[in-house]
């Protein structure tokens, strides 16, 4: 009995010692392996850098081991976003030869939104032109993040041909592409997509037309002025009309002045009147001064403020109407004073030799500075 007990205790101790020993060895081996892998990863990264900078491709024997799934793509993608021209082309053709691009395109069709997002980002960062159909198909995904990634990637590809797909996805019920994501993609494509965007302004979807109006203004599309004026006047959507007004202000065509003046009229919704007023300020046409000056008798705070600020940007006529209101006893004179004060501060920075305005001599500057810096 005693012998059996001693034997079992010895065996148990032995087992514990062996187990501990094996665990230590395993740990050490694992640590060593991850160290070796990290070193290899660094070596591959260096090879990718060399490939990007050099004219010669590394031979396959440099890639002695297989990298973990997606590591080659991850390393290359990070470097691809930093370079352009022939360096990027070299990196892309290397990845093509390794089958990474085909794999990424295939991954866009698999289940799993994270994989799809990664694949879209990879294809976009490397500007793989042939990935366009796959990315356009991802715009119809049920997952919002996938749709955003696909739009971003399409923007990075910069192909105007993908604009109709991007615009269509704005109005797909249940699978809408967020407005901002579409705008960013269209901006990445830039003025070379003008024709498609102009065509999109005549589309059926409200969000589509709104996006087109916004972009046409940002890319300063002079040829779209008439179409923007037409939509500003007649579009059924207020959002589209507002964006058209903003675009017309950005483009700066004098043809839009009379239409924008009509946009100030009382029967229009307030946001449209505000944007029309600001756009008239951007156009800088003195013809708009009387119509904007009329707004100074409004009882709406936002309208009064916008009108006063706009008049201060306009010609000497606008300035005159502001100074006369500031000198009057009207309850709205505060708005004129504030606009003049803002204008004076800006002018003082640009032209410090200018004489200060008389109407501002007894102005409450303490209060002004508070709101100025908050603003």
């Amino acid at each position, binding site marked *: 009995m005693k012998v059996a007990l001693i034997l079992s205790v010895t065996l148990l101790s032995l087992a514990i010692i062996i187990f501990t020993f094996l665990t230590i060895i395993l740990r050490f081996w694992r640590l060593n392996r991850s160290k070796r892998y990290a070193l290899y990863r660094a070596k591959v*990264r*260096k090879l990718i*850098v*060399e490939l*990007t*900078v*050099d004219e010669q491709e590394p031979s396959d024997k440099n890639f002695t081991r297989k990298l973990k799934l997606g590591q080659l793509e991850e390393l290359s993608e*990070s*470097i691809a*976003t*930093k*370079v*352009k*021209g*022939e*360096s*990027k082309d070299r990196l892309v053709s290397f990845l093509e030869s390794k089958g990474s691009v085909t794999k990424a395109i295939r991954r866009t069709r698999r289940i799993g939104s994270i994989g799809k997002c990664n694949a879209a980002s990879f294809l976009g960062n490397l500007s793989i032109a042939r990935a366009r159909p796959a990315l356009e198909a991802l715009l119809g995904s049920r997952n919002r993040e996938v749709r955003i990634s696909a739009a971003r990637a399409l923007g990075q590809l910069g192909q105007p041909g993908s604009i109709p797909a991007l615009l269509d996805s704005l109005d797909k019920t249940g699978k809408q592409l967020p407005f901002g994501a579409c705008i960013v993609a269209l901006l990445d494509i830039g003025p070379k997509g003008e024709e498609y965007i102009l065509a999109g302004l005549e589309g059926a979807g409200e969000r589509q037309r709104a996006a087109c109006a916004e972009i046409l203004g940002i890319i300063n599309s002079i040829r779209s002025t008439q179409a923007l004026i037409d939509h500003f006047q007649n579009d059924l959507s207020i959002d589209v009309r507002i964006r058209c007004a903003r675009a017309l202000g950005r483009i700066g065509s004098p043809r839009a002045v009379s239409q924008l003046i009509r946009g100030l009229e009382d029967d229009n919704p307030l946001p449209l009147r505000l944007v029309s007023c600001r756009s008239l300020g951007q156009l800088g046409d003195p013809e708009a001064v009387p119509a904007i000056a009329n707004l100074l008798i409004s009882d709406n705070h936002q309208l009064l403020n916008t009108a006063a600020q706009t008049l201060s940007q306009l010609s000497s006529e606008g300035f005159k109407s502001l100074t006369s209101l500031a000198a009057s006893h009207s309850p709205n004179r505060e708005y004129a004073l504030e606009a003049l004060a803002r204008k004076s501060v800006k002018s003082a920075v640009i032209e410090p030799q200018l004489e200060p305005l008389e109407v501002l001599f007894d102005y409450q500057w303490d209060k002004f500075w508070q709101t100025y810096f908050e603003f």
Partner: protein
Amino acid sequence: MTKILIADDDPDILELVNYKLVQTGYDITAVTNGADAISRAKETLPDLIILDVMMPFYSGIEVTLELRKIPEFVSIPIILLTAKSMELDTEKGFAAGASDYMTKPFSPRELATRVQAALSRN
């Protein structure tokens, strides 16, 4: 050997620029932030400096301003690397005393050419 100091917080950019310029035959010192850029520039007195605009501690523009105050650095060419979206900063960069600028993403070959041109002008 011509000495070049590079400062960028992005390891990829640092490695790409470093590799290209070492290959061209320059002696490179690489740092990852603005503060190190100033101190290493004072230590090594490089013939040309490449600075990223957005860096920790001091921006590339601040480093340029700081270095231009020192007589030894008045005529040393400084090239700024800036993101495409920050192109407006180039005006500030030139005002601070930068000699040239490049937008990211960049072409390593173009950078090497600009470095060569800046050095030969100097």
